[in-house]
Structure formats: C-alpha cells, structure tokens
C-alpha cells in the first residue's frame, strides 16, 4: 500500500510548479489526519499518542502550556521531525511521513515560524513577488515578468493582509505586527491548502491582534488554518474549535467555552499558574 503510494507520488518530486489546485483528496472530510503519533527525544515523549483531525477549510486553535508539544507537532506535519510511530496524512492521498520538507511545502502546507523573517531591503510588493509560486530556476527568474493574474493575486494578498498602502515601502520599515502579516502574506502567495501559524500575536498591540484575528478568520473556508497561540483572549476571538495539548497528547477538544469549563483543563492551567506563583 505505502509502496504504491510512494510510487504514485514520484511525479511530484521534480515538480517545481505547484498547480493552483493541489491534488489533495479531501472528499472524505479531513485535510489533516494524525493518528497515534509519538515522538521521543532522548527517552522523553514530547508527543505521546497524539490524535488530531482537521477538516478542510477549518480554523483550528491549539493551546496548551509551555512544552506541551505544539511546536513539535508542527515540525512533524512539515517533515522537520520524524515521529517514532503513528500516521500523518494530508487528505486521503498523501502520507506525509514518506515525504521530505520541500515536497511537503510544494504539496501545499505553509508554515509561519515564531520569529518573522522578511527581506528588509525589498519592498512589501517584492517580498510577495519572491514568495509567489513560479519557476524558480536561475534563467527563468532572470527573464520573469509579472503577468496580469500574478499582479492581481499580489494585490489581493496585499488587501487581505492590510498592507496595500505600504506596497512600495521597504519591508524593513514595517512594524512588528506588519511584518507578521507580510510573512503570512508570503505564505498565502503559494496558495497553500493548509496554513500552520505558530504564535502569530506574540508582541502585538491590541489593535494589531484584532487585525490578525480578522485576517485569520477571513482565510478560513478558503484555506485550512491551524494556529498555535498562548493568548487566550485572542484564541477566544477567532476559534470555532479549540484543541488543548498537554504532555504531548490531546487533553480536550471543543468550543472555547466547553474547553474552558473542562475540569482537566482547569487543573492543568491552574497547576501551571500555581507553579509559576
């Protein structure tokens, strides 16, 4: 079975161009399916029998105390870390555990890291241009020109991220929040099916948080989005469904209200705040 799978994926290996519609099979519901995943670092189980399903078009928030394994989970999905056991599927067709990082990225999983890195000397527009799906070999890049649809797509992402007015300014002058949006915009340029966003609002002002919430909720439906965040207020403002991670496995799942009234969740969070006190 997995041999057939991997043979079927051969054609993707040398494929630099991601088609706008990636061949992800979501007819059976979930876009991301993780089953019994375990990762051990020197005997320490960072992820322990994790089960997680994300539906196509869903906006999912993952919360959990420090060290719960949230970032590690993203590392597994993007191919950066290999689990010891378990299954990770993207749609019903792609077994992510048989693919490497670039292949997974090409397939349509975009990831925003905690620390934003944009090209400061280039304009906001140019940052998006470079991130766009295109033939990225040397000579095609030399003669590349933006055609109408490409320009429109950049304009659209500029609107979505609220950076339209700053399009010609160098990215270096952007505020911290604006850089985060630009980075999300750069991910969007590749038209990902699934967006993984790690702590997007850390260090943001109230207003910037609101804008980010709008941006992420606006994406849901078109893309599937998984957000890891510590800020409860922020999570409440965007989440329809929340997953609480604790010691590498799912502790609770449901609406924000359900989760917050769950005694086990309260215990974990109270326990943590007592320790901190």
């Amino acid at each position: 079975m997995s041999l057939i799978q991997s043979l079927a994926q051969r054609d993707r290996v040398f494929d630099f161009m991601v088609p706008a519609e990636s061949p992800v099979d979501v007819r059976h519901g979930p876009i991301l399916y993780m089953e019994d995943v375990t990762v051990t670092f020197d005997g320490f189980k960072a992820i322990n029998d994790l089960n997680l399903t994300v539906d196509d078009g869903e906006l999912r928030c993952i919360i959990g105390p420090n060290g719960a394994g949230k970032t590690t989970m993203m590392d597994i999905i993007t191919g950066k870390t290999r689990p010891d056991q378990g299954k990770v599927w993207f749609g019903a067709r792609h077994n992510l555990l048989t693919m490497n990082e670039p292949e997974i990225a090409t397939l349509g999983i975009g990831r925003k890291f905690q620390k934003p890195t944009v090209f400061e000397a280039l304009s906001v527009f140019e940052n998006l241009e470079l991130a766009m799906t295109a033939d990225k070999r040397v000579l095609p890049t030399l003669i590349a020109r933006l055609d109408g649809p490409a320009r429109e797509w950049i304009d659209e992402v500029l609107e979505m991220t609220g950076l339209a007015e700053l399009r010609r300014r160098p990215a270096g002058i952007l505020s911290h929040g604006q850089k985060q949006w630009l980075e999300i915009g750069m991910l969007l340029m590749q038209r990902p099916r699934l967006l993984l966003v790690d702590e997007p609002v850390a260090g943001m002002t109230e207003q910037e948080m609101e804008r980010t919430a709008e941006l992420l909720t606006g994406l849901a439906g078109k893309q599937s989005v998984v957000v890891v965040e510590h800020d409860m207020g922020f999570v409440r403002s965007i989440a329809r469904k929340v997953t609480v991670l604790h010691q590498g496995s799912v502790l609770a799942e449901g609406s924000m209200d359900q989760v917050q009234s769950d005694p086990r969740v309260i215990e974990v969070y109270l326990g943590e705040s007592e320790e901190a006190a």
Partner: protein
Amino acid sequence: MWLTQPFNERSTQLFIGVLLAAMTLVTLLHVVVPAGHPLHVNAYTVNLFGKYLSYALLAVAVDLVWGYLGILSLGHGAFFAIGGYAMGMYLMRQIGDRGTYGDPVLPDFMVFLSWESLPWYWLGFDMAWFGFLMVLLAPGALALVFGFLAFRSRVTGVYLSIITQALTFALMLAFYRNEMGFGGSDGLTDFRDILGFNLRSNETRLGLFLASGVALGASYLLCRAIVGSKLGRVCVATRDAEARTRFLGYRVERFQLFVFVVSAMLAGLAGALYVPQVGIINPSEFSPLFSIEIVLWVALGGRATLYGAVIGAILVNYAKTVFTGVMPDAWLFALGGMFVLVTVFLPKGVAGLLAYRFKRRRDESDAAPGQEVTP
C-alpha cells in the same frame, strides 16, 4: 524585455548621459582643440582616462557581487588579470617576426627560454575573435569552477573572502614562474598593434578610450538589467536572509554562481581593455593588495549602487595619479585616510549623498498611485 528595463530608470539614464557626454567632450578636446591650447587634452591624458574607465568597469563587476549578492570577493584582481593575459597573448602573437629575436611564431620570452614550439594553450591566440572570446571565457571558467565548489559547500562571509584572496595569491605565484609560459615576472609586453592599428598612435589610444567607455556603458546596462530583474531581487534576498530565500524554494547557490561568473567575465573584459592601454601585463596584477584596493574603490564610491563603484574607481585613481606625482610615499596614507574618513562620515559612500536626493524624490512619487516600479 528584462534587458531594456534599465532604460526606464532615471539613475541609469543619467549615468549613460554623463558617460556619453564625457566621452564626447574628451574626444572633441583632443581632436578639435589644437595642441598648445589650454583646453587641449593630450594623448597621454586620453590614455589615462581610458585606464580609469577600465578600472571603473572592474569596480562595477565587484559591486555586482558585493553590493547585491553580499559576496565580498577579495580576488577579483585575478579575473581582471586573466582577462588581461588573454588580451596580452593575442597582442603578443600580433607582434609576429618584429620581436627582438625575429621568430615568426614564438614570443621573445619563449625564444629566450629556448622553447621549440608554442605551448598548446597559446594556440588560437593569433586570431582576434579567439583571443577576445577567451577574455570572457577564461575568467568565466575559473569563476565557474571556483564558485561551484565554494557555493555548493556553502562557504560564505569572511571565509569566502579569505579563499578568494588565496586564489589570487596562488595565481600570482604561479604566473611568476617562467615555466608557466606567461613570461614570468616580466609578463607580456612590447605590444605593437591591435586589430592592425598601431598601439602607439594617438588615434588608437583614443579608440581604446572610447572602447572602454562603450564597454563600461554596456556592462553597466547589463548589470542594471540583472539587478532590476526578479533574479536581482533574489540576490538581494540572498544577501540579507540566505536561509529564508532557500526556504522559498530558490536554489541559492545557483544564483550566486550565475552572478559570480557574470561578474568575473566583466572583470576579465576590464583587464582586456586595460592591458593595451598600459602596454604590459605582469603577475603583479594578481597581487592580493590590488584586489583589496578594488573593494576600497567600491566602498568609497558607495556599495550596491553600481554608479557609486564607477565614481569611487575614478576618484581614487585620479587621486592616486595626483598623489604619486607629488608625494609618491604618501599615497598609501592618503588612501587609508580617505577610507577612514568616508566610512566614518559617509557610510554609504559618495553615492550615498547622491542617493539621498533621489530617495527624497522617490518618496514623494510614492504617494502617487500607478504602475509598480521597482527602485
């Protein structure tokens, strides 16, 4: 077309305009104004200007890799010298039987070393097209091999600078050896003519000056086209955040290699224009110090502007001409002093002053909605 894009840039229009005006002015003052008139530009000065222009082209080549790719090459003198040697080999073979020993094929130094026949790598240099092609291909090939190895192993930063110094130093030692077949420490000299024109005539000197100007202008346009293309933006992205660029799916080492090879070829072209104007090429052009000096020109003129490199090369070399005439011993101190002053007071070089004005204008036009223009 990406190649014609620079013609729309104000700074490029201005640069080409100034260059053409300067070339015309020098030509007129040399040809039309009679000798003895205070405004007359004599052949010696025309020759000197031609030399400055070839240095300016060399500086542009260095700025292309340093300014836009972040690769501080301290070995561009090597590409310059190899281009110069390729031209020198063609010029040597043009001498024919007019040499001291009168050998119809062998250059004097080979007769002196009692060599029987031409080494294989001297074959073909009797033909101008072959020699001129080698001016570009020989430095290009060296850059290709060197760059391939360096960029593939991700050697960057100060380590790359050091191995470029090592490269030019090793080549200098090699070219000093008589057995190499490049004339040893004396190098190649006593050239007679180029394409049938006598190198000592005033007309040929003017021609070489103009050829240097044309080469500088054309190379400048080529570099602007590269820098203004999407590839140029990938280069800047690589310079500022290499890992991030790689993460976006660009094979960074291939972009670095491409630009490095183009730059080496331009440096070779500069060397080829320099050699007939000074009448000699010897291994001292490979000296590590010379390569460092080129970087100083670019730093003084202003990095990552291209025109700054031209300004820097001409200013420093003019100052050098003046100084070595008046106080030869003080030149190195003057160069060092200039460098310190500029880095302290003008961190963006002379071009930084000019760019400040451009930038203000650009910021004003930012407010106006319209077509996307890349600065």
